[in-house]
Structures are given as structure tokens and as C-alpha cells.
């Protein structure tokens, strides 16, 4: 595995590791690590650093819905032009083109069910290329982006073992 990949693996697991910690773990100097990370940021390999938050625990519940959208593709642009229009709405958190019964899978987030419903009714459904929408409100999140979002019991190893 090359050094860049080693660095990315570490950051993927814990973005707050310091350059010094990473340097020692991959066998480079701190300056080399800083340089490599800067280069990865510049070239867009590293998009940004985020925090995985369980908002529910703070009592700040958000409402999210997955919306299946059927589209009439446009001549010359296929799905791209309409997808680019949809993704610019800040309410849209995730947008995929998928195979199967519908075309776009849109994850929308809002502060209330009403708000999400209004977004679909007023912004999404009226787009001329959209032929139908099916809204699935999310009832419970179990796992998001590879992170499990609930507290299992704490696992404890023996503190000292042979």
C-alpha cells in the first residue's frame, strides 16, 4: 500500500489524528505528511473533514425522507442536467442515479415532516422532467456512512491478559 493510501486510511478512521501521529505511524516526517495531505486536499482526493453526529441524542431531531424520482431524460444531457438542478437544493443531502424501477434516489432532510413534504410538492415534483415521486420518510437510522448510530453495550477486554 503506498504512503498516500496509508495516510488516507488513517484519516478516514479518525480525521483528528495529528500530522505528528500520522507521521510516526507511516514512517514519514511530519513535514512530509503535511505536504502529502495538502497535496491530497488540493487535488480533491480529500474533499473535506466532517464529524459523524447523532443529532437525536441531543434531542435535535431532523426529519429525513428518501424519495424515488422518475425522470424523462433529456436529449443530449441524459439525466445529468436534471440531476445537477436537483442537487443544488440545500435540502438534498444525497443524490444517486440508480437502476431499476425509478431513476433518481434523493435523500432530503428538513426540520419537520411538513417542510420535507413541502419541498417535494413545491420544488421537486413540479420540475418538468420529473414524471413521478414516491416519498419514504425515514423512521429510524441504524447505520450511516459506515457508522452504526446506536450505542451497543460497551465491550471490555480484560485489562491485562497473557
Amino acid at each position, binding site marked *: 500500500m503506498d504512503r498516500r493510501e496509508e495516510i488516507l486510511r*488513517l484519516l478516514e478512521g479518525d480525521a483528528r489524528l495529528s500530522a505528528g501521529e500520522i507521521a*510516526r505511524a507511516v*514512517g514519514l516526517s511530519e513535514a512530509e505528511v503535511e505536504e502529502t495531505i495538502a497535496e491530497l486536499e488540493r487535488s480533491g482526493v480529500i474533499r473535506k473533514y466532517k464529524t459523524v453526529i447523532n443529532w437525536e441524542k441531543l434531542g435535535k431531531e431532523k426529519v429525513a425522507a428518501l424519495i424515488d424520482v422518475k425522470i424523462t431524460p433529456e436529449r443530449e444531457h441524459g439525466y445529468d442536467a436534471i440531476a445537477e438542478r436537483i442537487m443544488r437544493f440545500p435540502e438534498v443531502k444525497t443524490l444517486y442515479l440508480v437502476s431499476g424501477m425509478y431513476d433518481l434516489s434523493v435523500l432530503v432532510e428538513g426540520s419537520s415532516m411538513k417542510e420535507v413534504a413541502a419541498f417535494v410538492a413545491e420544488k421537486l415534483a413540479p420540475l418538468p422532467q420529473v414524471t413521478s415521486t414516491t416519498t419514504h420518510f425515514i423512521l429510524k437510522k441504524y447505520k450511516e456512512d459506515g457508522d452504526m448510530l446506536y450505542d451497543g453495550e460497551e465491550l471490555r*477486554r480484560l*485489562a*491485562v*491478559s*497473557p
Partner: protein
Amino acid sequence: MMRHKLAKRVQEVPPSGIRKFFDLVADVEGVISLGVGEPDFITPWHIREACIYSLERGYTMYTSNYGLAELREAIALATKRRYGIDYSYEDEVLITVGVSEAFDLAIRALVNPGDEVLIPEPTYVAYKPCTIFAGGRAVSVPTSVEEEFRLTPEQLEARITPRSKVLVLNYPNNPTGATMRRRDLEAIADVVVEHDLVVISDEIYDRLTYEEKHVPFASLNGMRERCICLNGFSKSYAMTGWRIGYALGDAEVIEAMMKIHQYAMLCAPIMSQKAALEALRSGNNAVEEMRREYNRRRRFVVKRLREIGLECFEPRGAFYVFPSIASTGMGSEEFAERLLKEQRVAVVPGTAFGEGGEGHVRMAYAASLRDLSEAMSRLEKFLSR
């Protein structure tokens, strides 16, 4: 009331240094523990899931004393593929309850009262007691940091007597992290032949090497017939609690071990054997992922220890570092106790692994980089006082 009834052999063995330290650690809050002898990963889900499935289907019965045939077959095949050594799954593979049981069986199958078992030191904690319980004499063979804790033929020969019968090898090594290269093993093989020794080679850390590929002792010319090779799933697949190990060897010795195993244990738990089978079938990627992660931690810890000012040879296998603490002027037990009390970091004093471990402590890097980083900062504070 029972005290005077206890067998001499059992009384002869002192309480474990690890246990003693375990009790000390239990009394301290907020400890970062580098004292563990097991992975910090949880068994990969596909392996756990396979176990659940086997339970759903009703696999709750005994297996053959030797273990599930399909598991033995898979082990024989994996051994052949990885190391080119042939073992017949029918009578040369025995599934045991961890390597711990396999070692006990091997010793009991070989040792007569008074026979000497040569054990390189620092050593894993179980070899000497098992030897004594079996009526044998445990003879320590010192290894040194100058030789990166490899066993040398000179040190070995110096301890050989007419009663020498068994040599125990454990590379990659717990507690030192030492490995033996092919040429190191070949030099030992010459001594083994010359003095007609049998080798019990505990290779439980074989998948965790970071510089060169592991060389099994049995793969050396003429050594397959003189060697009982022990291995298991605990370390490579993060499966310590499942208790599945195995022994590979000539049919005669495997049958002798099975003879004891069938009465003492009957068989290893079937659900764990099913899980082990899944591990062999599709656990390879997980092993490699974990190995890479250990390697990053290894580099980090060795680097930090040297920066802090503790001499530390670079371990090439397992997940332990064994730094020298001689420069602090403290003995290893004092060092470990004070580090625990003053900075809440648990390490194991080298003396828990025999007198040869004095002047060292064992630190396991089977912990997150973040915890390791914090532990090293605390260690630095401890030493700067």
C-alpha cells in the same frame, strides 16, 4: 483444609505474574491498558454470522475427537497453500480448545518424569507451568536484546543435557515480538538433529509479521517429522474467545495427543469450529486489514518510545513491543506499578515472562492509535519526573 491435599506439582508453580498485575490494574480508574494479550478488534461479522447460522440449523452436538472433518481439511489445505507443508486431514490435524490446550497436550504426549523441556526466555507464560504439571523439568534458554531476542544455537547448546527432549519455539514471539528468519531456524534445526530433540512450535502469530514472511519450523528440511506445529484462530482472525487452535504433526504424535484430548476435552465446541471454517474460507481480507493496522501502530509506538528515550528493538511480528527500561534505574515491576499508579497506563513487567524479562516491559499495541498516542504522552510525563 484442602491446602495440604493439593498436589505438589501445582503448589510448585508460583502464581502468575500476569494475574497479580491484573488485580492491581482492576483497582485503578481510567486506565489505558497496553497489558492485553489479544486483538482489540472484534471478530469480523461474517464469521460471527456463520456461527449464528450454524446454531440456527441446530449444530449443537459433539464433533469427532479430532474435530470437524471439513475444518481439518480446510486447515490442511491452507497450510499446504501458504507454506507448502503436507498434513493429512484424516490423522495429522487435531482441533483443540485454543493453542493453550494444544500445547498442554503436546507436552503431556511427549514428556516423561524428569525429561527436560528447553524454553527460550523471555517466554509466553504457559510453557513452564504446563511442563511442570506434566512432570517435566522446564529449562530456560536465555535470549538477549542484542540478538533481538532470537534463539541462537550457542545459547541452546549450552543448556542441553542428556535429559533434554523437547524444544519449545514461539516465533513470532509473545512477549518480545521477535521473529526467526530462515537462516536462524536452520541453525537451530542443526542442533535439534544433533541432540535428537522434538520441537513444539507455537506459531499462533504467523500471520502477523511486518518485515518478512513467516517461516514455519516444520517447513525446514527434515523438520516436519520432528515438529508439532501449533496454530489457531485467536490472533489472526481476532477470535480469542472462541477458543479454537490446532496441532499439526505426524500421525503417531497427533494420535497420542488425541488420546488425552478425548478424555479431557472430548472435542472443541462445534459452533466455534463452524466459525473457524468460515474464517478460513473467507477471512483473508480481514486478516490483511488488521495486519496493516497493527503495522501502523507498531511503527508509531517504536518511534515514540525511542523519542521518549526508551531503548526498543524493532519487533517484526505479533503485536508487542518489549522496550528496555534499564535506563530508568527501576526494576520492571516497580516501573509497571508506578506507571500504573502515577499515569494510569498498564504495561506488563518483563519478569512475568521469566527472569530473563527483567529490565523490560511488554506493551501491546493492540489498541487504537489515539489510545496509543495518549499512553505514550503519559509515559513521557512519567519519565520526565
